[in-house]
């Protein structure tokens, strides 16, 4: 088990080594000009403000949504359980573009109603777009949390005469803390590294500075220190989550069965609840899809069919292996962290997050240089792209497997060993089947992320190799929105399918 985990650690750290070396080689004056100045302070505080805002908005919206879709008799619960996760299929920059094209004197709202609504932008615009985009990540974590905890505590509190509100704040919320923390970490890391949304919304964060440094100089040295600062920032979040998580101890006192729960009846609150989740689906799914369909209207596909087919093949040919590789790597890491808890195995698990936290542009450049120096034969092959995706999205694969391991009782494994099976066959016959739903969620999450990925693909793709999202970017960049639309719709369709897979298996984990 330790060997694959170690390989993984080295693989994540390699591109980072490149960044450090590059920073050391940078001319001090240049670093000073780019890093130590007033603007950096502004960008840093902007980044933190946006992180805080998005975390608050996603938590406040996802918490009731998670509760409604998992614990109540909400009408059409199953539909909403899936629909609320669907924004996962929509890239952030597409969401920002949707919001932008809605408002203003010549926006979609004006064309349809004749009334011009103000265009979102700046902090508010970034906040809305990033919150919608990140909402499913928070929701999935909270739903997992709600599913995992013991409802009998809630019933005890109720039977002691506490009102429902009091029960929520003193019993439910504390139990959800690990889930909220996990969601917060994921959301913050996304916000720190986002570039597409903040640039379209004209809000200057740290990743904006990084992008400019890379874009401008025809060289990479000035940018490396900025990338390191961003990683340090991400590192702070990763460690903070770990520290806060350590103080939470949740165990069931007795060996008894968790209570079978009955969904709470909403009665007259069913309508407001329905309106609430419908608005979320409207903003997060219907609006962007309509915008894209509107863009695709009347586009002549003609010769584009071939290109579209090629893009589908290219996208699948790296996203699918990446999903499998990432899940394969995540399995030993999560297993070690759960079954052999130590400082070492916890550190290894956090290392997965480091790949996630490295700005993709920096990660890609690091990989590019390393393949050229070490294995030039692999340069610009799909291998490197699969490698990049799987390490970058490793963190997404670890989480669900870990959650699955929480549910798989180690006593079952012990029983299997006692009955004479070796460690390997115990793993294959007992642990793996128990983990299957978690593995499927991991596969789906990494697959979804890889389908949407852009900066890594741009730098590392072989010539003639173009994924769906590269095509979307290409055409929107040249203001040919109609041509971009078919690619966007395919991404949505394929991703939607896997969101369905994800939601069905999500329930099995809990």
């Amino acid at each position, binding site marked *: 088990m330790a060997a694959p985990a170690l390989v993984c650690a080295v693989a994540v750290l390699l591109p980072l080594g490149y960044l450090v070396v590059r920073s050391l080689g940078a001319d001090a004056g240049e670093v000073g000009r*780019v890093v130590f100045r007033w603007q950096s302070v502004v960008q840093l505080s902007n980044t933190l403000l946006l992180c805080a805002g998005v975390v608050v908005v996603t938590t406040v919206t996802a918490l009731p949504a998670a509760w409604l879709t998992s614990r109540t008799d909400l009408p059409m619960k199953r539909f909403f359980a899936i629909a609320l996760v669907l924004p996962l299929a929509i890239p952030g920059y597409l969401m920002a573009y949707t919001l932008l094209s809605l408002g*203003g004197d*010549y926006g979609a709202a004006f064309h349809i109603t004749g009334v011009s609504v103000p265009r979102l932008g700046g902090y508010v615009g970034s906040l809305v777009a990033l919150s919608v985009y990140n909402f499913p990540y928070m929701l999935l974590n909270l739903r997992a949390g709600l599913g995992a905890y013991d409802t009998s505590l809630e019933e005890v509190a109720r039977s002691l005469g506490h009102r429902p509100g009091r029960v929520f704040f003193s019993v439910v919320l504390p139990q959800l803390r690990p889930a909220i923390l996990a969601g917060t970490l994921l959301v913050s890391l996304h916000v720190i590294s986002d570039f597409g949304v903040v640039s379209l919304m004209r809000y200057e964060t740290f990743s904006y500075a990084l992008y400019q*440094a*890379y874009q401008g100089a025809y060289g990479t040295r000035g940018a490396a220190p900025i990338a390191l600062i961003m990683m340090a920032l991400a590192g702070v979040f990763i460690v903070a989550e770990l520290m806060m998580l350590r103080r939470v101890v949740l165990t069931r006192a007795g060996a008894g069965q968790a209570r079978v729960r009955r969904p709470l009846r909403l009665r007259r609150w069913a309508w407001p609840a329905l309106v609430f989740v419908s608005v979320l689906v409207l903003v997060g799914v219907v609006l962007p899809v309509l915008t894209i369909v509107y863009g695709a209207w009347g586009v002549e596909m003609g010769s584009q069919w071939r290109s579209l087919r090629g893009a589908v093949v290219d996208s699948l040919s790296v996203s699918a292996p990446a999903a499998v590789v990432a899940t394969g790597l995540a399995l030993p890491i999560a297993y070690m962290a759960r079954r052999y808890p130590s400082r070492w195995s916890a550190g290894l698990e956090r290392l997965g997050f480091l790949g996630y936290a490295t700005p993709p542009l920096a990660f890609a450049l690091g990989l590019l240089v390393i393949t050229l120096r070490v294995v030039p034969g692999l340069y*610009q092959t799909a291998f490197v792209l699969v490698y990049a995706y799987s390490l970058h999205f490793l963190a997404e694969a670890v989480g669900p497997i870990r959650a699955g391991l929480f549910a798989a009782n180690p006593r079952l494994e012990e029983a299997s060993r006692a009955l004479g099976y070796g460690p390997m066959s115990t793993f294959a016959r007992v642990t793996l089947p128990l983990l299957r739903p978690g593995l499927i969620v991991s596969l789906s999450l990494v697959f979804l992320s890889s389908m949407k990925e852009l900066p890594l693909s741009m730098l590392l793709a072989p*010539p003639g190799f173009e994924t769906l999202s590269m095509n979307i970017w290409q055409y929107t960049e040249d203001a040919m929105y109609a041509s971009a639309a078919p690619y966007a719709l395919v991404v949505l369709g394929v991703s939607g399918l896997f969101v369905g897979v994800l939601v069905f298996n999500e329930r099995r984990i809990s």
Partner: protein
Amino acid sequence: MRSHYFRASHLVYCLIVLALSFGGGSVGAAQAESLVLYSGRGKALVEPIVGRFTEETGIEVRVKYGKTAQLAVALQEEGEQSPADVFWSQDAGALGALVGAEMFLPLSEGTLGLVPEVYRGADGLWVATSGRARVLAYSSVRVGGGNLPGSVFDLTDATYRGRVGWAPTNASFQAFVTAMRKTHGQDAAKAWLVGMIENDAQVYPKNTAIIQAIAAGEVDYGLPNHYYLLRFKTADKHYPVEQTSFAAGDIGNLVNVAGVGVLKTSEHVEAAQAFVAYLLSSKAQQYFASETFEYPVVGDVIPSPRLQPLELLRGEAPAVDLDTLEDLKGTLELLAEVGLR
């Protein structure tokens, strides 16, 4: 529940099978008889022309798309090991940077002879493929035709306070600032940038965003390249934005070029030279003029009715040596100094 689970896992098994089959297939990507083109120009502009080239010559072209600056970085990192044969850049600055790094082979005399001297790089190491002008875009709703400024320097005037959109991170804008520094001097360029910032010029990430902001009513004027608006107008002829040039010779009318060079690392030099020559053929040039709304760089092309005649463009353009645009570093330092980077 159970039936759903089965369906779901089948889908995932498909994924795994797919992964394995692709894993085997994606190895030997390199082919012997094909060109590798690194293109800083978008797919929409490149793919049709590459397709025609392949049809006529039988030479396959594999394209790696990206931002011009990123590809220039990648080419320098790759050095000797670069698989690229040809680099097609979106602006003259990046070409100059690669000339400085001694990465280009000289182009053939015949190819160079096709274009006027202003459209060739130093020592014949690169050649322009099409031209594009910087323009002043304005709202056709909120700006009357009579109130247009004669010079880009006028935009620091209080009349334009908070009404102008620009894209300081955009490569074309930065090339324009370089030209301003070279023509009017460092101090004048700095004074203009500071004046624009103090006049509350609105920052956008790119040219198209400026034009959309004018339509949306966020700003009234903008400084983009000339062809983006024409693409918006093709999709919607009532689009409420117009564009114009400044007075003849004004630096705000800078004509920059997209250009192409053959890399020293190329193992298919003949095919690469043929590709460059093809981009200057009247067929390709006609395509740029009528489909991408850019200015052709060779003579015998029917001009697009949407574009002003080439002679007029040349008359209005300021005299700038395109090779001097490679001094991007100085411009980036200036932009950092005034707080735009």
